[in-house]
């Protein structure tokens, strides 16, 4: 709780900076309007009030974004095409489906890697190298190719999400499943434990902290994947579509609202995983 004051101070400073930047960036339009109307140069206070509530500002002010967020979440039926809850759900469902697929496959591959030496030596370098490749660049292609195969809507986006969350989980889980040291493994051997028992009773529990760390990375990557996956389909539905249509039509307030909605969703997912992590690790006696 002692940390709350500095965090709030920093957030307040950011908001103040934001207002300052909004005045500066939006003032050009105000001056422009004044010259066109032939009026005299507006005073500074006039400029400030004018920049606060423009319809298409260069930088929307925080209260405009908040108002737009409020209007398009609470103030609208969630079935409406303009409701951010609707678009957020479209994105979130693809994210969650992809995240589940990616995590499941990632864990399976990790289990294969720790039990099979050939797989470890051949797949692991590629899994690590794949982290350095801008995978997201393939996203539009996957969408279009799957579209031509007759798959559209949720599944192609989920595949991209799965792909992005897959590698962090593989790398994290391999590390985690290998984290028990030789002493512990030897102890189980003296108990005459089978490989399966060693796996379930020692390796899996000790991999949990690693699993949760990579889940947090993975869910954030999944959301990015789902958002980017929505771009090439031509802005139909989803947060990415809101970003794209906003950028086509110059609706800056809409872009910022969609951006904040995405941020809130991402933060919510990470916090949720954090809570599950804390609960699980506490039950397992791993939190000191």
């Amino acid at each position, binding site marked *: 709780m002692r*940390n709350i004051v500095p965090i709030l101070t920093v957030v307040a400073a950011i908001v103040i900076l934001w207002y300052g930047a909004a005045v500066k960036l939006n003032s050009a339009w105000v001056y422009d309007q004044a010259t066109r109307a032939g009026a005299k140069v507006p005073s500074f206070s006039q400029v400030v009030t004018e920049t606060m509530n423009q319809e298409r500002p260069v930088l929307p002010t925080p209260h405009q974004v908040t108002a737009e967020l409020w209007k398009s979440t609470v103030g609208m039926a969630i079935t409406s095409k303009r409701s951010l809850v609707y678009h957020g759900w479209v994105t979130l469902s693809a994210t969650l489906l992809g995240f589940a697929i990616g995590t499941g496959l990632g864990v399976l591959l990790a289990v294969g890697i720790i039990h099979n030496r050939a797989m470890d030596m051949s797949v692991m370098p590629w899994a690590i190298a794949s982290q350095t490749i801008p995978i997201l660049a393939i996203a539009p292609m996957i969408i279009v190719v799957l579209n031509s195969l007759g798959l559209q809507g949720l599944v192609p986006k989920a595949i991209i999400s799965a792909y992005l969350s897959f590698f962090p989980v593989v790398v994290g889980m391999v590390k985690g499943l290998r984290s028990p040291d030789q002493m512990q493994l030897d102890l189980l051997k003296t108990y005459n434990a089978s490989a399966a028992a060693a796996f379930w009773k020692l390796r899996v529990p000790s991999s949990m902290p690693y699993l949760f760390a990579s889940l947090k990375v993975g869910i954030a990557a999944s959301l990015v994947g789902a958002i980017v996956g929505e771009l090439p389909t031509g802005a139909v539905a989803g947060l990415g579509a809101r970003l794209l249509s906003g950028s086509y039509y110059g609706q800056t307030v809409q872009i910022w609202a969609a951006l904040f909605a*995405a941020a809130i969703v991402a933060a919510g997912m990470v916090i949720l995983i954090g809570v599950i992590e804390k609960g699980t690790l506490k039950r397992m006696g791993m939190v000191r």
Partner: protein
Amino acid sequence: MSWVIVALAAWIGGWYLNIRLSHAAVARTRAGQLAVPVIFGLTILILWEGLVRGLNVSPVILPPPSAVLARIGSSLPTLGADFWQTAVKGALTGYVLGCGAAVLTAIAIDRSPFLQKGLLPVGNFVAALPIVGIAPIMVMWFGFDWQSKAAVVVIMVFFPMLVNTVAGLKATDAMQRDLMATYSASYWQTLAKLRLPAAMPFLFNGLKISSTLALIGAIVAEFFGSPIVGMGFRINASIGQLALDMIWAEIAVAALAGSAFYGLVALIERRMTFWHPSQRR
């Protein structure tokens, strides 16, 4: 059909070879450790080529690797121009600016625990957000050319770098700082001679994470608007023409560029932080 059989045979053969290699004594040598993944990669390529040919997959859905390679060979100038526009102008400029700004910010807030307590959670929070979403805004502000891509990259790499640098500046222990104090070293001397060198492993960790983010940011930002050159633009435009071989060629270039960039940073890291346990051999 014969293509499929050849491909599957190559796959099984490669896999068998890998199993033998990984259990043989050669697996512990450097050559063995290099050969196994290379064989694996090659068998995947052969399998891909064979399946695409054998099952008559339309090149609009998945072009065979040979077609992609031919495309790379035939359109080198285009790929080169795209690479220059996106990777060098957009990503590298943004990377240098963003990482530089983050290190300077970290040093600036280093003396204030209050600011650190406030900025770090915010920085961690922002690092988890889908920052690529800021791309349309940056395109609106800075125009279609590489400046807007560099701006997206700056914002993407800033927070991971900041968080890592701040953590790195805390990496010295009290004994070491006390020693500097007994030498009556000033704050800046301590920073330059003790704390920055000690922070290097963390700095390089941030630099490595950022190197991948930078290229992703620059490519995705081009989906929102770009001049008629650039890797993201080419991918987007080729989708419209269903020129899948061009897209795979761009992806190959992106993968090479990303890996080379990462490898370069890792190489510099090995040179500069040779003293760190993780770099010892």
